[in-house]
């Protein structure tokens, strides 16, 4: 299983961790990780162990952002390695997500 999710004790934050490749094959698992979530106010996508990310992953991040409230969403992309940062930078996703 390459996608795991974890709720903070106060249920305010949902952390989704992706191991390995973040691409279309992760689609079902990634959606499943947040789709039923109704309480969380903040979302963190932990990309520490993500070594690859393609354009369908960018699309999935947009779906999460939409779920989390669109323009008002609080979604942080955490622990991005330099390759992932580069991909996010080309699409200027720093304007849509907190990247750190």
């Amino acid at each position, binding site marked *: 299983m390459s996608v795991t999710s974890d709720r903070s004790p106060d249920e305010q934050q949902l952390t989704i961790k992706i191991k390995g490749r973040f691409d279309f094959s992760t689609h079902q698992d990634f959606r499943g990780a947040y789709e039923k979530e109704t309480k969380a106010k903040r979302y963190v996508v932990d990309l520490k162990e993500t070594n690859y990310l393609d*354009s*369908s992953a*960018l*699309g*999935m991040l*947009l*779906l999460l952002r*939409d779920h989390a409230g*669109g*323009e008002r969403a609080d979604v942080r992309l955490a622990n991005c390695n330099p390759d992932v940062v580069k991909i996010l*930078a*080309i*699409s*200027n*996703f720093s*304007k*849509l997500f907190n990247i750190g």
Partner: protein
Amino acid sequence: MAVSAAERLTVLIADDNASDRMLLSAIVSRQGHDVLAASDGAEAVGLFERRRPQLVLMDAMMPVMDGFEAARRIKELAGESLVPIIFLTSLTEGEDLARCLDAGGDDFVAKPYNQIVLAAKINAMNRLRLLQETVLQQRDMITRHHKYLLNEQRVAKAVFDQVAHSGCLSAPNIRYLQSPYALFNGDLLLAAWAPSGNMHLLLGDFTGHGLPAAVGAMPLAEVFYGMTAKGYGLPETLREMNAKLKRILPVDMFCCAALICVNFKQQLVEVWNGGLPDAYLLHGDGRPHTPLVSTHVPLGVLSAGSFDDNTQVYPFGAGDRVFLLSDGVVDSTDESGELFGARRLQNVLVTNRNPALLIEEVQWALARFRGQARDDVSMVEVAYTEPDLLGPPSVIYTDSGDSSPLDWGASFEFRASTLKRFNPLPYLLQLLQEVHGLRLQSSELYIVLSELYSNALEHGVLGLNSALKRDAEGFGLYYTLRAERLDALQDGFIRIDFQVTPAGSGGRLTISVQDSGAGFDACHVLSLPPAVNQLSGRGLSLVKQLSDRCQWTDGGRTASVEFAWEGLA
């Protein structure tokens, strides 16, 4: 134990021994199957041809034609479908039994028959037969679907090509490489002339592959061509394309795109890059290339309110080129998974000597790197050319001209908050196009009108000094200041007045453009020698060249120009 109707088979029994044949027929019928009986191999082959039984029980040794030969022929006749052949044999030597299978037999039963074993073997063979049937059906279905899909893609591509090639990709200053089925990789390349003689070009890359990646292309192309032909600039076109894609695409789909506008007359190129890899401005004078970095979110992601339509403007003259590419180039990987990357690409750009070969050289470098060429890369190069060499942009009118208005006037005033976001030129030009006599000069008209408008806006309302644009650095500063001041604009106006009057069989149009700025010393500016290699100062001389009369009054705050036309045949 009889089989159900669904499992009921037609079984061919071939045996030259009449009593054996009758015994076997009785056993098989009792199991619920229909029986066909033959007394030698030739008869068996004949019966098979006529009746197509589903399973064959075949004696090996028979007169006329033996079981081995009959099995071979029946297998040949059966073609792809599986007709199991079970040999009936009293042979016991391994070699003989192997011959049965070599001849195409699927199994054998030894005489005398054990009814239970025989029934089990018939059932087992029937399962294999059904499995083969299912596999063949599925294979045929996949083949059929694949054919449909290819046909659908062919039709979709043909329709789309009609749209895409209505533009000016064939212009002499454009070179490009695109896979014939790029549309289904999500890649999109469009180019079109604006009425001003500017060239607009878009390279886009939709997320995903196949049909989903292709569906957004048509609406995007429509907006691109429609708005370019009407004279809208990049910001308006970008806003509209973004809004349209945002409206129609699912949340996880978007389009990485770069859009450029080449102004040949003023030697400028305007660039917007949202999500494509670095594009490059290649300088003809040997300076290192300038990367055109993606500074925007791709199209179709942001709502209209947060979309950023800011563009970058660069000088663009003889020998200069813009090079755009899709991510297939830098994202190519070799066997070890290493990326081709921007550095290898830049190496090609630096070592390129013959501009005509640049795209080929990038392809060669990719092929060397990967050991094979990829078919999902898109590259395009747009070069500066003398405007005269490009020919006039063609616009087609469809109305008759009987109702052309010939004696009228109209005045407009555009105030600060409008000037910030709205470009009135396409509307104004549309209005003037109603006068048929002006259509032959519509390109000149558009250029003059847009020159006067941008002079009024930039030098008048915004108070920018064009002397800033004397070097590349100042050039950048000029456009930064322009964006800042426009953003902060509170007061100011531009008034535009049209007077159309008949004159003989033709007529005359007078345009005056007045702004709220400080004015300028028109006599002094116009007396300067025309700029050739400078980055500024082309505007006024263009206006002078293209209109029939022009003058500045009111301390340079009001410009008036005239266009006259003769009667139409």
